[in-house]
């Protein structure tokens, strides 16, 4: 059911490196530019694309991703357009997994069944929905699994051993370990603690473990790649979008390149760590 995802993790394992997961927001800074960014990500070294579905009230996100979402909403991005973006991307790339990440309300309002069907046919591989813990699994997680989409769950430093099985229960594709207690793009994680947490999670699941939140530079990426199966970078990519914009907040000829260059550097950071076979 998550064939593109498992194939990609297998490939990275064969290449004895961690996977690079890149987060950008659909529609940031505008729909056309964000489509160009997403299309350029695989060649720049992204193994998996996490595509943010903008929401007015992203309560787990820091200032960088909040601002990115607001830019996207201001430019007219909607859930329907985000699914269209995935469809268009799929015309040129049939192998790079795409995970949609966001909050529940826009999906709920679109209609869960309709959303899942459209996501599946558009070429989405999985979902991360921040405000749906296992306690609310029947809302979206169970229908998503039934529809053949991966439901990637966040595990956090507050998820203790007693709770982990509950969190991992319906998780599929991979596990996303949030390296800090906090919002996206905040504090830099304690790399030692992250390694311990990843091995703790691995005792409970055979799924690959990705690590994100607060990972900003190629050096951070390399440090995380030592311990994790995948490294997630988000805030610094949407910051690269922001700093490339003109005074009116519009895309410039340098916008796509700014993201691509950073992804290249991050991919090198990740690939610099040779993992055990």
């Amino acid at each position, binding site marked *: 059911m998550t064939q593109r995802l498992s194939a990609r993790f297998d490939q990275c394992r064969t290449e004895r490196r961690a996977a690079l997961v890149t987060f950008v927001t659909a529609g940031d800074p505008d729909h056309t530019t964000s489509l160009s960014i997403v299309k350029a990500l695989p060649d720049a070294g992204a193994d998996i694309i996490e595509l943010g579905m903008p929401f*007015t*009230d992203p309560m787990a996100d820091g200032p960088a991703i909040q601002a990115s979402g607001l830019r996207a909403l201001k430019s007219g991005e909607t859930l329907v357009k985000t699914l269209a973006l995935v469809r268009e991307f799929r015309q040129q790339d049939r192998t790079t997994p795409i995970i949609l990440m966001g909050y529940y*309300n826009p999906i709920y*309002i679109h209609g869960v069944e309709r959303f899942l069907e459209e996501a599946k046919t558009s070429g989405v591989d999985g979902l991360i929905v921040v*405000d749906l813990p*296992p306690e609310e699994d029947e809302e979206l997680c169970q229908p998503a699994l039934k529809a053949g989409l991966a439901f990637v769950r966040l595990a956090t430093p*507050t998820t203790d051993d007693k*709770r982990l099985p509950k969190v991992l229960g319906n998780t599929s594709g991979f596990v996303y370990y*949030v390296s800090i207690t906090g919002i996206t793009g905040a504090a830099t994680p304690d790399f030692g603690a992250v390694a311990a947490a990843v091995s703790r999670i691995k005792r409970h699941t055979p799924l690959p473990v990705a690590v994100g939140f607060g990972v900003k530079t190629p050096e951070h990426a390399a440090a995380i790649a030592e311990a994790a199966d995948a490294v997630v970078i988000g805030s610094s990519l949407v910051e690269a979008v922001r700093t490339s914009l003109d005074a009116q907040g519009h895309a410039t000829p340098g916008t796509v390149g700014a993201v691509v260059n950073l992804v290249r550097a991050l991919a090198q950071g990740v690939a610099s760590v040779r993992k055990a076979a």
Partner: protein
Amino acid sequence: MSVVTKPNSFRSGPDERGRFGLFGGRFVAETLMPLVLDLERAYADAKADPSFRAEMDSFLKHYVGRPSPLYFAERLTAHCGGAKIYLKREELNHTGSHKVNNVLGQILLARRMGKTRIIAETGAGQHGVATATLCARFGLKCVVYMGAVDVERQKPNVTRMHMLGAEVVPVQSGSRTLKDALNEALRDWVTNVTDTFYCIGTVAGPHPYPMMVRDFQCVIGEEVREQLWEAEGRLPDSLIACIGGGSNAMGLFHPFLDEPEVAIYGIEAAGHGISTGLHAASLTGGRPGVLHGNRTYLLMNGDGQIDEAHSISAGLDYPGIGPEHAWLHEAGRVTYLSATDEEALDAFQLLSRLEGIIPALEPAHALARVIEMAPELPREHLMIVNLSGRGDKDVPQVAEILEKRRS
């Protein structure tokens, strides 16, 4: 087939998943989930512990000044020429509103849980002031998130919070009002998970907050029942209260939900008017969605993006409502109406002049509907209005508006 089955009791919710019918729940990030479960356990323990109740009762009496009077508003009644109007004087509580009832409960609970840092969101500043006050009383660190727009329009309360030793953080994100203050408080909580207790000010948020805040506010309705029995020897005929998130209303309503002869009215803020789209009436003008940890009625666009609410009253300026209200609305037990900015301003002035009580702009919305309903009702009809807060905080803002009108 009926969509909403009539329950045996309207007072038995929520279920073990924190649901009132379709509404409520625990829609929070995983980082917060263990904290929310901890809180649920700690609250259940406290509720079962007679010493917790005794400690609360003692502080409610000696520190808050309860019971608050149930006052027969003789001149307002004469002015309306119909129903006999009683005001539940929550504005006489220490800190000037009903908010302190809930904050006291949560702060005592935070102490039991060994938490040392308290965070809160505030709109009008009444919940922020109550939180800052009890944190001062118990020597706890206090951080209050307040939308930058609200910091501007409710300056007296910002000054009070500072004097009480709280840190007030003006929130610049989004619409810079109450909903954004809530987002920012949640972001703080997700970051400071070990020492911090999030003291939510209304009957909203993830379970167990809607239930717990309701329980702490029920003292309002329980006192009304006793006081009216003493004064009139019977139950009220109608209850009426304003609603932002809905905690003062729930506190008054809940003890009477299973008395079918008591009519109950909740008044939302209609801002410039429902038809203008610039309002804060989630039940009248919104639909079910998920935000801030619960499913409830919300103001939003067709893409599920949350709309900004509009109200003259910072305390009602929120695009959602407590989930139990959403359920009572659909079950038809409570009738939800609304009042505009203009109507609230008129009622604000009327009560000030007739009764010598300057109400907060929030309960002025309830008074606006009282003035309209009371004349149509018989003289033996007993109507209870929750006067949830006093208007001192609103005096500069109202003075400015009236000044502009005159010029």
